[in-house]
């Protein structure tokens, strides 16, 4: 089948009335929740995930894709209007987006963010359609050693690109892997690390961990600070960007799309780093870098496009290899397994309707955002006016109900509280929780592939370096690690990451 046949199949699936409706509901709900300050896409998706369980896998995933897009865009809206990034990838959007809002140009900022995202999403969809099948074909040749090495690369990248100390990020990854091994051992049926809790026999749920560590912990952290939000409600003004805005934006959008599309494909790299890279690139290229941070539209257009392109292309490693590039992707991967679909190179051939339907839905979700949500921006602004003291009890209730509905047990609710406390402590100790989630999702797969590799090699760990593909992957991980230890590059990375905060 050619790309066009594939995309055509996708359109056939996605454009059936019912699937389109689910996509629309997903986008609207996702934006609705995602726009609330302090709720990033990760929490939004995990809160809304239980709603999709009653649907068929295809419809459920399409709705989830809608939620994903809605939540991401909702996050950008909050970043621009309230200066509160929902997740790390919209940190840079805050810089110039919020500065634009202060100048009464929130409308053009929102419009450019949506248009840039749409353009980037379109290009990235094409790249996905082009590159996913050959990559999946290549990955079919992967055996257990290759998978193990690949996951190692993904986890290393995630730890390397996370905020702060690399040692701590690595420790978070290992902690995640450890949490992933809770439950019944698949090979022997032994209950591991369940501490006598019968509900833990099936393992921990990633939704519970995500809601606890990102939802509940975030609320506690926010309650510590006094409420000091400024919302630019009256100043959204006209949505239409001026001609000058468009002229200033098209090149950053193109560059952002290129950066994002490339970075998204790397396992473990994800969206955050591509938005940072795009921001830095725009600042370097600009004739007058002094404008950045003071409302330069390039600083919104580039990173938002990069972010979205990466979000789309990171579906390539997620769907074809089963290696997520970010915490949010880890969540999507977890959702797939809940629907009984094992992500990997075979998804494309065993569930072509689902795969291509999802790919096309992502694009349609993006389109719906542009035509539907921009006119509705007034409503989102109204939602932003809700004071946090009314908001956070609602989030707590939604998380509680969501955790309970996962498998109708209050144990999940209690576990969510436990992870809330743990997440809060870890954030206070400056340990970033996203690598943990990645480790958690990859843990069981990693153990399985490690065991199989060792069985194949009769207990000889040198199999990882004697198999050529595996060796190449490990060498790239080692190079990456070495690069990060070299001080000059390390400083560059710190500069890149901290630029978003200053």
């Amino acid at each position, binding site marked *: 089948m050619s790309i066009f046949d594939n995309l055509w199949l996708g359109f056939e699936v996605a454009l059936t009335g019912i699937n389109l409706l689910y996509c629309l509901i997903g986008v609207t709900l996702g934006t609705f929740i995602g726009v609330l300050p302090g709720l990033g896409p990760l929490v939004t998706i995990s809160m809304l995930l239980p709603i999709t369980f009653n649907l068929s896998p295809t419809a459920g995933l399409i709705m989830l894709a809608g939620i994903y897009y809605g939540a991401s865009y909702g996050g950008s809206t909050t970043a621009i209007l309230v200066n509160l990034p929902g997740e790390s990838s919209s940190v840079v959007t805050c810089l110039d987006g919020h500065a634009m809002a202060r100048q009464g140009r929130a409308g053009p900022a929102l419009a450019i963010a949506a248009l840039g995202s749409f353009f980037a999403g379109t290009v990235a969809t094409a790249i996905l359609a082009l590159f996913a099948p050959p990559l999946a074909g290549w990955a079919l040749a992967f055996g257990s050693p290759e998978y193990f090495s690949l996951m190692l690369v993904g986890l290393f990248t995630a730890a390397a690109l996370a905020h702060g100390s690399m040692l701590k990020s690595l420790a978070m990854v290992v902690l995640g892997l*450890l949490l992933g091994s809770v439950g019944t051992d698949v090979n022997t049926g032994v209950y591991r690390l369940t501490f006598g809790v019968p509900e833990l026999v099936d393992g921990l749920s990633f939704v519970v961990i995500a809601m606890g560590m990102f939802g509940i912990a975030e609320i*506690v952290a926010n309650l510590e600070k006094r409420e000091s939000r400024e919302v630019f409600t009256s100043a959204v003004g006209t949505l239409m960007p001026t001609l000058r805005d468009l002229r200033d934006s098209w090149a950053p959008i193109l560059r952002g799309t290129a950066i994002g599309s490339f970075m998204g494909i790397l396992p473990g790299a994800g969206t955050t780093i591509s938005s940072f890279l795009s921001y830095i690139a725009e600042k370097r290229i600009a004739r007058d870098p002094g404008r950045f941070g003071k409302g330069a539209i390039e600083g919104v257009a580039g990173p938002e496009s990069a972010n979205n392109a990466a979000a789309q292309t990171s579906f390539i490693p997620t769907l074809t290899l089963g290696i997520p590039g970010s915490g949010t992707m880890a969540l999507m991967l977890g959702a797939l397994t809940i629907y009984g679909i094992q992500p990997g190179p075979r998804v494309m051939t065993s569930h072509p309707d689902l795969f291509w339907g999802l790919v096309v839905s992502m694009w349609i979700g993006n389109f719906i955002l542009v035509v539907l949500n921009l006119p509705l921006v007034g409503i989102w602004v109204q939602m932003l006016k809700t004071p946090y003291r009314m908001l956070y009890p609602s989030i707590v209730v939604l998380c509680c*109900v969501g955790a309970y*509905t996962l498998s109708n047990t209050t144990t999940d609710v209690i576990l969510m509280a436990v992870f809330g406390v743990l997440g809060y402590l870890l954030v206070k100790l400056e340990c970033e929780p996203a690598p943990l989630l990645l480790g958690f999702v990859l843990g069981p797969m990693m153990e399985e592939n490690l*065991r199989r590799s060792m069985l194949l090699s009769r207990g000889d760990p040198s199999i990882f370096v004697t198999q050529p593909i595996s060796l190449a992957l490990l060498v790239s991980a080692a190079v990456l690690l070495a690069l990060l230890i070299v001080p000059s590059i390390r400083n560059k990375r710190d500069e890149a990451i901290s630029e978003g905060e200053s």
Partner: protein
Amino acid sequence: MKLNNHRDVCAGLLFVAIGTVAVVVAGAYSFGSTMHMGPGYFPVLLGGLLILLGAAIVARALWTGELAPLPSMSLRPLLLVTLSVLVFAFLLERFGLVPAIAATVLVSCFGGHEFRWREVVPLAAFLALASVLIFHVGLGLPFLLWSW
């Protein structure tokens, strides 16, 4: 770069503690050999790795010297928000969804800076009603609504 070493010492010790628990608990499962890994192999390996990483974090913090104070933590929101989640878990299957939501809203609101009955009561009522409508009526999830 700022030095947050006291923080790092605590973080490292936390990782060492979790790793130790994992090694001790998983050490009871059969370890197997590298060729035929038992259920204990991977968790013990990870626990050991976590202890090493934790120790390295502590060592680096002590090495670089200058111990910065621990971050400030306010216990009130932590305790009350956590309690509100636990209250939900406790009440849900005993008294039903509506009382559980009401109690959760009430307790979590005490964790904030301002508490106004005039806001909390309508909020609790609204959230209870909305949850019943969305999850019970709309999605058909089997919830015990109330019983006392």
